[in-house]
């Protein structure tokens, strides 16, 4: 549950006026946001947790520099992104022969997987633990620039403008990358969601010949 904006502003004012204990309450709604944001970059749970702690500590120390032009959540995400990228750089420097997969990625055309079987998937199938773990893996394997946008938009449910602000890009690019990310996930996850609905292969093959 996110705090109402006026509650948040009031909390901020009280913390800066000396009631520092209230900082715990201020950040409580954003614990997951910060963790998932860093996890999306570093892809390592221990690093993500450490980074999340450092992010919240930085936010506390630099609270005065938050002037409320941005939303508090956006400000936190920006700190978290920087923390995550810093940790990733360190990890990459440590692994000498690492290559940045995102540089090899083009912004080009992307085609979704087409299987009409999908519509037969009962909701119970989506409850499956295994499927959730496949989705986590698929998100982890997205190229960095797509994963960052997907995490903020679809996992953390920031809006287009907030996502654009946090990533320092324009809204159009957010939309393009989000669409690509979703289509990549769709393509990766289709095999795991295939139902037993028979007899449609012929239709699909004919359609695409």
């Amino acid at each position, binding site marked *: 549950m996110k705090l109402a904006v006026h509650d948040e502003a009031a909390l901020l004012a009280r913390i800066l006026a000396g009631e520092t204990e209230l900082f715990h309450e201020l950040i409580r709604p954003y614990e997951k946001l910060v963790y998932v944001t860093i996890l999306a970059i570093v892809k390592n749970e221990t690093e993500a947790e450490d980074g999340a702690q450092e992010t919240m500590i930085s936010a506390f120390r630099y609270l005065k520099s938050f002037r409320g032009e941005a939303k508090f959540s956006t400000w936190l995400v920006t700190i978290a992104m920087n923390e995550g990228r810093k940790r990733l750089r360190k990890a990459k420097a440590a692994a000498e022969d690492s290559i940045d997969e995102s540089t090899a990625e083009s912004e080009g055309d992307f085609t979704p997987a087409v299987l009409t079987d*999908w519509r037969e998937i009962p909701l119970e199938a989506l409850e499956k633990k295994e499927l959730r773990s496949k989705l*986590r893996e698929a998100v982890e394997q997205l190229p960095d620039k797509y994963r960052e946008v997907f995490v903020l938009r679809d996992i953390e449910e920031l809006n287009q403008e907030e996502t654009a602000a946090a990533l320092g890009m324009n809204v159009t690019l957010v939309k393009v990358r989000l669409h690509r990310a979703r289509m990549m996930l769709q393509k990766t996850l289709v095999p795991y969601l295939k139902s037993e609905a028979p007899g449609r292969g012929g239709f699909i093959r004919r359609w695409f010949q």
Partner: protein
Amino acid sequence: MKLDCKHVWEHISGYLDHELDPALLEAVQRHLESCEVCSAVFDSTRNILVLTADDRTFELPVGYSERLHERLAAVIASDEPGRG
């Protein structure tokens, strides 16, 4: 406006996010009603987003919140906010 499948795929995200203008929205909707392939692509993408929004998919580690607040408490006790 008449769309082919490839164009519809390009607008699936916009459709899911309710961002299409009325004319495009109607064209996409009409296509989805009559095209099994595209409506399957749409359903599958929507299912992924439903699964993504499920709190159990992306969980916090056990004890994460406790450890975070413990560490913060130590910092808060020894520090003033807003030095930066």
